[in-house]
């Protein structure tokens, strides 16, 4: 093993020892449980019928865990010290009893509306890295996705309580926690996914975005968000027209009758910026030309520039995660087993700035453990996890680099509880209609 590899393992190391410290002294259990109780009492069914899933050592995967109350949750969490925590739906009965129940007795009744955006879905439009790797350049795509989807959820669908989470590795999640969102049926979740999705499923090499003029207001807004950075991102950072291979990838998105012309134009230019400018000029010329092109031909060019920008930058969703109510999703404040990074909340105001590739932007398990171990001894009176006082624990994580993220989370949880009353009113008119489905 090379030194470099060794060092990397040290940095990311997720050991049972570290995990035990993390869950005992750092993990914000009480806020976390308050979140999932949504204003109900600590021992409510809302919490007790929630599915959790723990990944233990050696990839032992335990689904359908559930806990009667917060105390039990915390106790088991410390005892099992999972490498990864996933959250599922709230079921009609306690998930731990699911084996004794039939499908008419055990079914999901509530689930946050969740979104999962993963960088690997963008592999055909990023040239900086592939697969699980990310860098500040391609992270721009995640920033586009977060800003675009967040505004859709808020402005179009009216959802107030949106929790954005960095997954710990190469993507982001969004948890929409409004009561109306949690009660949506699977078919409505699919409707929302389809509203957001513009990339047709199919081969990566073919053109997958088709737009109509004028753009729908939601897409106009997305376009504005992309435009703020497109030139800097695509031309400079990605250099998306920088070599023949990239040019050919681009050319496939263009109507047949312009491909040869564009190849010739591009060959006389050197930078991506010049080529992009020349392409836009060519497209405008095609739209305005009165002679050669027929009306139908022209239509192919009116939305072409936008289509290409969207092809390269518009959010790509894992639809199945959003559609299925019983789909599991990695929990906030879970550790990423491969990177040792904590899944942290991203403040709504910084969706456009957050960058996990910037040094020190995401707390790592071993750093956090070092930080609490350096604390003065008196904070650790009772080593027995059972008798540990919450106040001690609060003090502990307040002195780690996780504090700002726990603050974001705590504020989010508080806000999502206070508006509970208003929501109950708003939803009463819906109750009758939303209950039926084929």
């Amino acid at each position, binding site marked *: 093993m090379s030194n470099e590899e060794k060092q990397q393992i040290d940095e990311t190391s997720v050991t049972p020892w570290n995990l035990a410290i993390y869950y005992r002294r750092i993990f914000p259990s009480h806020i976390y449980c308050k979140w999932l109780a949504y204003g109900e009492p600590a021992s409510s069914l809302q919490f007790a019928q929630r599915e959790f899933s723990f990944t233990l050592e050696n990839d032992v995967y335990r689904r359908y865990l559930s806990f009667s109350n917060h105390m039990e949750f915390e106790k088991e969490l410390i005892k099992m010290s999972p490498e990864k925590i996933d959250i599922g739906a709230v079921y009609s009965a306690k998930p731990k009893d699911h084996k004794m129940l039939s499908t008419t007795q055990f079914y999901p009744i509530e689930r946050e509306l969740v979104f999962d955006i993963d960088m690997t879905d963008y592999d055909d439009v990023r040239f900086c890295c592939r697969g699980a790797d990310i860098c500040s350049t391609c992270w721009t795509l995640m920033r586009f996705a977060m800003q675009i989807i967040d505004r859709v959820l808020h402005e179009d*669908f009216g959802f107030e309580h949106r929790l954005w989470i960095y997954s710990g590795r190469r993507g982001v999640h969004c948890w929409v926690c409004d009561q109306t969102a949690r009660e949506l049926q699977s078919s409505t979740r699919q*409707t929302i996914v389809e509203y957001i999705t513009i990339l047709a499923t199919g081969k990566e090499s*073919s053109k997958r975005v088709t737009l*109509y003029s*004028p753009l*729908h207001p939601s897409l106009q807004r997305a376009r504005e968000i992309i435009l703020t950075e497109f030139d800097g991102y695509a031309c400079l950072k990605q250099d998306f027209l920088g070599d023949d291979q990239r040019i050919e990838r681009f050319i496939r998105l263009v109507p047949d009758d312009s491909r040869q012309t564009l190849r010739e134009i591009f060959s006389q230019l050197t930078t991506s910026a010049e080529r992009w400018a020349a392409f836009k000029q060519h497209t405008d010329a095609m739209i305005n030309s009165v002679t050669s092109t027929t009306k139908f031909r022209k239509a192919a060019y009116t939305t072409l520039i936008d289509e290409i920008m969207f092809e390269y930058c518009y959010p790509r969703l894992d639809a199945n995660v959003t559609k299925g109510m019983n789909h599991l999703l990695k929990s906030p404040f879970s550790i990423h087993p491969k990177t040792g990074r904590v899944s942290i909340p991203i403040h709504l105001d910084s969706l456009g700035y957050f960058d996990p590739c910037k040094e020190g932007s995401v707390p790592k398990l071993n750093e956090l453990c070092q930080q609490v171990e350096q604390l003065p001894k008196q904070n650790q009176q009772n080593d027995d996890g059972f008798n540990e006082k919450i106040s001690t624990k609060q003090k502990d994580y307040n002195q780690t680099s996780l504090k700002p993220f726990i603050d974001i989370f705590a504020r989010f949880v508080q806000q999502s509880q206070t508006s509970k009353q208003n929501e109950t009113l708003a939803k009463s*008119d*819906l109750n009758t209609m939303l209950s039926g489905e*084929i």
Partner: protein
Amino acid sequence: MEYRTTRFSLNSSSTKKTNLNSSNFSSLSINSTNSSYIPYYDTYPENTTISLELFQSLAIERLRILKTIEQVLARLNTTLSVAPMNKKDEIEKLIRKELKDKLNQLKFIIFPSFTGALSIDLQNDIISHYILRLAFCPTEEERRWFITNELELFRYRFQVLTKTEQLNYLNDSSSNIKQFYELVSDEEKKHYKESLMSSIIIKGLTNSSTIAKSFDSTTYFRVRFQHVPDLVRKRSCFLAHGYAYVSDNDIISFVLQHFRMNISYQMTCSSKKYEFIQEMDTRIELILKMLRKKRIHGTHTTMHTFNENEQTETITFDMLNSLSKRSFPLCMRYLHEQMIQQHHLKHLGRLQYRLFLKGIGLSLGECMKFFRHEFVTNGSMNPTQFEREHVYNIRHAYGQEGKHTSYTPYSCMKIIQDPPPSINEYHGCPYRHWDIQTLKQRLINNYDINEETTNEIIDKTKQHHYQIACQIFFEYQHKVKNYGIGINHPNQYFNESRKLLTGTTTNQNTMNNSMTQNTSQI
């Protein structure tokens, strides 16, 4: 035979008590010159006394209407929701032609101008609807069928209305529909002008001056986004803060969704009360049973949908490879190929394919052999995992486990409407779910379809005529022209193919006339 008069009293709705005696109808806002009034069907007819004879004939007439609509749409391979304007006229004409001289009490439903809608007509309309609702509420498949076709009937009737009549429908104080929308004020309309105008979906060429002109005279409705899912999905309405802004041209989406949710919700409730009603009156139960039979009988034998009893060949799993090339529709052929290549299929693919195999007559034992052969022998699954995860499910599909229900193979409608395949999933309808480029390439490269036929298929696919596309594939594969069966079930495709290839073909004339025969039967 003499029927005693029976009281048609279904006291299932406890909250609303509306008497549907003829006298009560006068309280509804019926304009007697407005011949095309559509009831909301949101209150049960209670304390209505009709003869058993009328009960039966009303039910049969309505079933005839629904089945005719189903058949006309199947024959044209479309639904009213996707049919373009010119086709809608054709559909209307066909429905009327088929039902001419075949209706008595419910004539006004299809021929609104024939007679003004009298209160007795409306009563018959409502009662017949509720009888069928009762007849088709026990199983999910029956509910789905009933709701789908009632929706199409509703759409037919709503489209016949003038704009003013449509607004009257929305404005009727006797319905709860008013709680679910608000009219958009002129002020708000002005405020959102740009957004509203750019939400009108016009594919292809746009004439902005036409849009601007019509905008001023358009009425907008504000509804919860959940209530217009088909508009939201296509991004063809403007959304703000959870509300959709729907123009009077699109309002049918909202009205239909309201209608659909109302009846599907109520039917789920009535299915739970069904057993209770069963005990109430055996004569009614007999009629309901007869109605369920008529629905299936009609569709299965004369419309050439899938008929389980049509199977004559004994099929073993080693025959599947060659059968799949010669007689499977593309959806199943593709699933088979993936199964052979990957030695695995994901959940939805397994469901779709397994039930199809059951439908073509592959026995439980052979089906088990086939899955074990692919998953375990050729694939990488260990035998215990197979036992644990798959044996039960396969037996279940054959009705040998669980509730011992025998599951019916999926119809085209179900396959088309179910969730589309995502990455590494291979179920679904190729014409509906593959993108055009992929479909084209595979047809030419993998399935040896010539370019002309491929283009024909692609054309139909683009116009959303997936089942016609499938039929063209069938005709090419079997070297027949204008075979005219109207594919609506993968197993029907298979059965037709076997008939052609093994020589037990039925007379073509019978097939083409099946519609007429069928309707006169019920």
